[in-house]
């Protein structure tokens, strides 16, 4: 009887320890990797007003400023992302998505440089022409330039 009980306790203990190991590995993995892979979203005003950690990958959203798109070469583009009050100069090398256009909402991902330029490695755009990224809507509302419903 006692042998059976100790056997049972031993088994439970082993299983408990095994699960504890798995759980702690998981927690470590999650905490370490989540921190490194989070991409924060900012509006142009945020970038200018706050002293942000430069050199980290972030997202910037707003409207592509009218008459600001300029091709340096066939695949290098410069444009300004604005929230109606202030704007940030963006440089991007690659293909612009189908729905990229002046005066439309855009979200770019990349690095905010010390000289105030934003070097984008991704330009995100959704498929619907009338679609406005929700972050951009919020950005425009915050800067008082939202004209939609």
């Amino acid at each position, binding site marked *: 009887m006692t042998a059976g009980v100790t056997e*049972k306790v*031993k*088994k439970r203990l*082993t*299983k408990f320890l*095994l*699960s504890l190991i*798995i*759980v702690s*590995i*998981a927690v470590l*993995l*999650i905490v370490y*990797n*989540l921190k*490194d*892979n*989070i*991409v*924060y*979203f900012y509006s142009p005003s945020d970038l200018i007003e706050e002293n942000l950690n430069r050199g980290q990958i972030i*997202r910037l959203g707003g409207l592509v400023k009218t008459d600001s798109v300029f*091709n340096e070469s*066939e*695949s290098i583009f410069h444009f300004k992302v604005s929230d109606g009050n202030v704007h940030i100069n963006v440089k991007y090398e*690659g*293909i*612009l*998505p*189908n*729905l990229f256009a002046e005066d439309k909402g855009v979200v770019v991902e990349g690095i905010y440089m010390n000289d105030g330029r934003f070097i984008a490695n991704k330009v995100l755009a959704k*498929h*619907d*022409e*009338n679609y406005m990224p*929700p*972050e951009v*809507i*919020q950005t425009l509302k915050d800067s008082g330039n939202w004209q939609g419903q």
Partner: protein
Amino acid sequence: MSTTIYYISNILIIICLVSSLLQTRYLFNINKFNNLSVSFLATIQLFSILIAFGLLIYLFLISDFSFELVYLNSHSEKPLIYKFSGVWGNHEGSMLLWILILVLFNFFFSLFSFKRKIFQNLTVSVQSLMIFGFTLFILFLSNPFKLSENNYADGIGLNPILQDPLLAIHPPVLYLGYVGFSLVFSFAIAGLICKEIDKTWASIIKPWVFIAWSFLTAGIALGSFWAYYELGWGGYWFWDPVENASLMPWLAATALIHCVVVLEKKNTMQSWTIVLAIMTFSLSLIGTFLVRSGILNSVHTFASDPGRGLFILIFLFTVLFGSFFLFAIQSEKINKPDLSSLVSRSTGIQINNWLLMTILSIVFIGTMYPLATDLFFNQSLTVGPQYYAITITPLIIIFIFFMIFSPRLGWKESKLINLIMSMRFILISVLSLSFIISLYFDLFNLSEITIIFLSLILVFTSLKSGFSLSGKNTIIKSNLGQNIAHAGFGIFMIAVVSNAVYSKEKIYDAKVGDSLELSGYVFNFKKIEQVEGANFNSLKAYIDLEKEEKTLDEFTPEIRFYSDPPTITSETSIIHKFFSDIYVVMNVPQNQQSVSVRLHIKPFMNILWFGVIMIILGGLITAFLKRTRIDEV
């Protein structure tokens, strides 16, 4: 006409509401059963919803814009198949589909006659309680049959990226999976009330669990395949919240199907099975809630229509708290001790269950964290795909390791040392080979090569055990499905890793007459022209694929311009070769002279889908093999 349909359809929904409410009365009066009325009420539910759903399809097909839903989601010039699929391409219609599948499962289950009558009737009652809840929901908060206040000449139309044959069948298949687990949830609750969770219980529910799981797997795979060729980014999985929402119930369900097998064989792991059954269904609800409430696009949309979201949340919390309360009361009475030794198959399965739960938490945190920060701290952020790749990879290695070993351990007792000794040559050679290859080839890192080799072992050992069992004698053994699915998973993992390592991509600004090049292939840009489609205009390019001066095939990527609603989509053109896909996608011209052309070589895509098909097939075989055995007994 429209008003007649309006009244008929709403009456049908009310009939379903009343009959499901009537059916729940068994919950309060366990000993008074009338079998005839059980299947009779289930039949009424089925027919009322079936006719209502048929009416909705009819309204979409004839483009009756006096109904708001048709106006918002359809257009008279849309091709027939998309008028059809537009029925469930929106919130209200998809909720009606959800109820249709709920009553369908209820109906089929009530048709069978099991020896455990009380259990069966209780299951039907719990299921009816859910049908009642959802019917109430669509009647008051999400009614698909709502007349519009204005007279519209034409509809707004369905989002063009949803106008795809594959996406027409993706939601129904996925819902068959999600809602299939509602029945499994009802099994768990009915079993808890009866306090009869044992081998017989497991053998009754097993085919249903496997069918639901197979549909869920197929639904996710269809969505992934659609994203692969429609979105034009060259990938098949983006760790997008919408995808994660369907992956989470799948992970719980995968743990669940293994628990059911253990329970059927060893009469143990009762609590785990119940917890997983509740968890799988709750995650299915969360998945539907996340995708359909619009909360993923913005947490603020939730506030604009709080009724719906609130209902699903209340429903979810009722399900969670109700079932866990019941579980807490009854769990002492249902648990049977685990008599097998520590080194046994059930321990292996338990370890892999923990791993699945860990992966589930990783996905859950990655999906929910951005929602939480946005809601509570007003801080928008995204979690990059690297988070998932880095955290899940080490877990997958241990997972595949136990997938190889657990089936080779006996159910009762095994000596670990014997097993290790019997596989020592394979193990040593694989580990050293992986190490050497990772040292000398930059292409693979250690974890990638380890996954590939472990997966290879998994494929071989599974196939061997599957075939030797079915080969020797003509009787098909019940683990055939398991072996096919496990081998399929191995093939899938090999394809996933090799695809990630060997994929190539190149972007060109191309003009007509240009020759582009990628990995030994030459792409000759012949011409570009305007083509008129069914409900769109398109720019179509013709690009020849050449290798060693010979023309092999022709690509015809397109850019489509839709007007209802105004949208531009890029249609990919893919040539499926045995070992790799060659994938061409074109973007809107930046200037008049050239278009952007993106070329992808995606190796092992066919093999990847083949692995997924094996996994689904394995699940279905297990479901139906078991069924024939029940019938024989």
